[in-house]
Structure formats: C-alpha cells, structure tokens
C-alpha cells in the first residue's frame, strides 16, 4: 500500500467507526441473535435459555393465534397495497396541474402523513365511536343504521385499514406525482392532435410511463404493511377477539407480555423470511416483464 492509501485507510477507519459500532451492535448482531434465539426456548426471568431446535417452529405452526395474526396481516397487505396504488395515483393526477393554489392542496393531502399514528389512532377512535362518533352521525343522517366500526369482529380490521390508507395516501401521492411530472408533455400533445380523449391518454401514455414508479409503490407499500403496529395497539389492542391482531402485535404480545424471548424470535424470523420472499418474488416478476 502506498503511503497515501495507508493514510486514507486509517482516516477512513476513524470516519466510519462510530456508525460501524452502532450498526454492528444494533443492526447486524441483533439480526443474527434473533435467528439464534428462534431455536431456543427462553422465558425471561423464569428459566434458563434452552436449545430446542426446530421444536419452537413446530409449536409456531400449531399456534392458532399465530395463523390468525398472519391471516390478518396478509389481509391487511392485500387491501392496503391496491388501495394505495389506486387512491394515491388518483390524488397525484388530481394535483398534477399548475392551477392557482394547487400547492395548498398538495400540502393539505400530506398533512396526515407527518402526524403520528398514535395521534391518528386516537382521533379516529373518536370518529369511529359507535354512539357519539361523527361518522355514525353522518351515516344516520343519510338514513343508514349506525356502523360498528372498531367494535365489530368483521368491521374492525377494515376500519383500521381505512385509517391507514387515509394517513399514508399522501406519501404515495408524492411518489406518483414525481413520476407523473417526468412524463414528457409532448406525448400528451401528440395524442391530443390525434384526437385522443383523456381516458385513452391515461391508458396509453400515463400508465405505461408509470410502470417503474408503480413498482416502487407496490414494494414499499407491501413492506410497510408488515410493520403496522401502532394503529392496532392504540385503537383496538388486537380485538375484538383478535380480529385486528397483526403479526407485529402478536410478536409484541409474546415478547413483552408473555416474555417468551425465543418464541417471539421465531415469529420475527418467519416475518423476515416472508418479507425477503416477497421482495424477491416481486423483483422476479418485474424482471420478466
């Protein structure tokens, strides 16, 4: 190594070291530790850590609560992702114009995104209140009967989904908007000269040009949906009867209420495998197109 390279390497060590220590200590090591723990049974404070190998995963597979949480999470992902793709695109198209004051509207649509899910959950819990909530007030005014919202077994999870989509729509709108603004105006002008109306323009210019962006939205939204914890924790705590318990809520319950460190690590590892699988699957699909 030349002298300069040696100097640069030593300097680099100093520059990188702080970040490296935190990164290895709180990202890499915990990840490996999670996989390691997933093969052990360990009730914190109650006993010693024991190696049980695959047995823990077997218990997991036989755990109805686990399947319930997994089912709910898949449902959550399967509804929020398409909703974002449609609604956020609609919003982006709506605000993609230079009319006066459009900036104010864009800002307004982004406001829910910066507010915490805890506050959002609290506010919407009040909106969803069966007896005194604003939503049931509007419903009864329009002649419908009051809706159960968070209190009904079949309505609770959709209600939470609605809140989440409301909060995050602006986030994906910004991504779509960037994509829309990259489409050359000339395409639309050419189409107009050819006499194409807005729908053909949308179908044949806008949508194909957005395929990259749509893919990004799809992946980000799918991955993000697996991280949902706060809304459920605040609005329903997993109820009624576990109908809103998502995989992360279940993990939290096993780890920090039942203190089962090994078992919760198995859940975590499975989550990771699912996410990797999904991401790879989507990359593969995209490559084929």
């Amino acid at each position: 190594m030349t002298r300069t390279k040696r100097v640069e390497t030593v300097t680099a060590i100093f520059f990188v070291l702080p970040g490296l220590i935190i990164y290895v200590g709180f990202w890499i090591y915990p990840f490996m530790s999670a996989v390691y723990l997933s093969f052990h049974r360990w009730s914190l404070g109650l006993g010693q850590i024991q190696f049980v190998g695959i047995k823990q995963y077997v218990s997991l597979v036989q755990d109805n609560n686990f399947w319930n949480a997994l089912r709910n999470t898949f449902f959550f992902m399967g509804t929020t992702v398409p909703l974002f793709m449609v609604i956020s695109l609609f919003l982006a198209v709506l605000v993609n114009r230079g009319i006066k004051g459009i900036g104010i509207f864009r800002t307004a649509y982004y406001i829910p995104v910066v507010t915490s899910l805890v506050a959002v959950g609290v506010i919407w819990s009040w909106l969803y209140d069966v007896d005194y909530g604003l939503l049931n007030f509007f419903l009864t005014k329009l002649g419908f009967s009051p809706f159960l919202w968070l209190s009904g077994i079949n309505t609770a999870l959709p209600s939470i989904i609605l809140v989440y989509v409301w909060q995050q729509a602006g986030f994906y709108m910004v991504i779509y908007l960037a994509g829309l603004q990259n489409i050359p105006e000339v395409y639309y002008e050419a189409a107009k000269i050819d006499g194409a109306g807005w729908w053909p323009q949308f179908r044949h210019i806008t949508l194909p040009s957005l395929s990259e962006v749509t893919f990004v939205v799809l992946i980000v939204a799918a991955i993000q949906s697996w991280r949902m914890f706060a809304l459920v924790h605040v609005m329903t705590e997993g109820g009624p009867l576990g109908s809103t318990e998502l995989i992360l809520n279940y993990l939290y319950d096993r780890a920090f209420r039942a203190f089962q460190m090994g078992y919760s690590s198995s859940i975590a590892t499975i989550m990771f495998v699912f996410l990797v699988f999904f991401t790879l699957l989507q990359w593969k699909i995209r490559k084929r197109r």
Partner: protein
Amino acid sequence: MNDKRNEVTRRILLYVLLSAVAAVMVGPFLWSLSTSLKLGKETYIFPPTFIPSTVRWSNYLTVLQTAHFPRYFLNSTIVTVARVIATLLTASLAAYAFARLRFPKRDMFFFFFLVGMMIPPQVTVVPKFLIIRRFNWIDTYWGIIVPGLFTPFALFVFRQFFLAIPVELEEAAIIDGCNHFQIFCKIILPLSKPVFATMAIFRFVFCWNELLWPLVVINSEEMRVLQVGLAIFKIEGMFQYNLLMAAAVMAVIPTLGFFLIFQRYFVRAQALTGLKL
C-alpha cells in the same frame, strides 16, 4: 363562447373536488380540535355539535397538569434531538469515507452497510431489548437513544449527495495540505446544507412519532415519551374524549408545525425514500 363557459365550469368543479378531498384529509384534525374545546357533557351528546357552545381552553391545562404530560414532551424532545444530531454526524462522517477515501474492499464494505436496510426493525426488536437490558439501560434515555444513533439509510443518502459534489473543490485544499477532517468541515459541510436539512427533518419526524421502540424500553411513567403517554391515556381510558383530543392535538402540533414551515424539505426527503429502491 360555449368553450369558455365549459372551461370555467370545469375549473370550478375541479376546485370543488380538490376541496372535498382536502376536507377529508384535514377534517379529522379540525374535528379533534373542536372536541378538545368542549365540556365533557357536550362531548357525549348526539347529535354532536360542530362548534362548542362554551370554549374550554382549560381542557389543555387539565391535560398538562394531570399525569406527567409536560415531562412526556421533554422526554420526546431529548430522545429525538439526540438521535437526529447523532445520526447526522455518524452518517455524514461515514458517508464521506465511502465517497472520498480509498481503502481496500471499500465497495464491499458499503454493501455490508446497505444490507441492514433490508432487515425490518421488528426482527431486531427483541434482541435489541435484550442488549439494552444487559447494559442496564432499560427505562433510561440511553436505552432509547443509543440504538438510534445511526441508520444505514442516512449513510446512503449522504453518500449519494457527497458523490455529486465536484472533487475539484477539494483539490485546492489538498494541495494546501489540509487533512481529510478539515476538508470535511470546511468544504463538504457548508455545501451540504440541503441534505442535512432534509435528513434532519426526516429523522425528526420518525423519532418523534415512533411508538414501538420507546414502548419496549420504558417502564416508568416519568420516562414515557409523548406517543407512549398518549397511547396509554387512550388505552387505559384515563380521559374522556374531550381531554384525549386535547392531548392528541398537542402531540400533533410539533410535527405539523415543522412540516408547514419546512415543506419542501419533506417532499425532497420523501422523494429520496422512493429512490431508495
């Protein structure tokens, strides 16, 4: 003549649609503000009133005086500001090394850092908890702050930005015999204000709004951060909804205010997230 009328009608309809959507987006916040100013007995009536008949600003005082609400604010501020500043420092320094310094296996090393971005935080929650516990940092500021002193995403963003700065600007300094730290401080930093602002805001919003990790680390009431405190207020039914709304409004104001002032940086930060993939 007809065309012009059509044009005006279309424009009006557009604004109506835009406003309707805006009402949906902003409405719940206005409603929570309205509820937060009501008396308890006016909160629980049907049909509800939109403008409180008596405006009770004292609801906010009540929330501030019960429980340790101001303390929650303080805790949130401490753990958030600490992590924001630390992340900016650790990530920008490391990014400089990856962008400007040559050392063996540099690119492989960088990839090593990127891999962490793919690990979902919840996978590491339990082991992180066990590590914090071993350091006796449960229920302390350290427990919340230390794992958040660095993120690979910040490293990625800073490096992208630094790579785009022309090397020529540093060459004069190198000839003058400046060491890399001086180059970093005197040349790179002043040129990096936009990326620092963007990352600061991004990190601030994330840390301020975070629930899971503080919830895991904290046990005692005085150490709660704002989000944890608010969540517990709601879950344990500590307050009637008018007071709960006042608490929610107070929890929202910091990030909301921040956003309204620094809007363009938010959009920029978020565009970077989209580019992350």
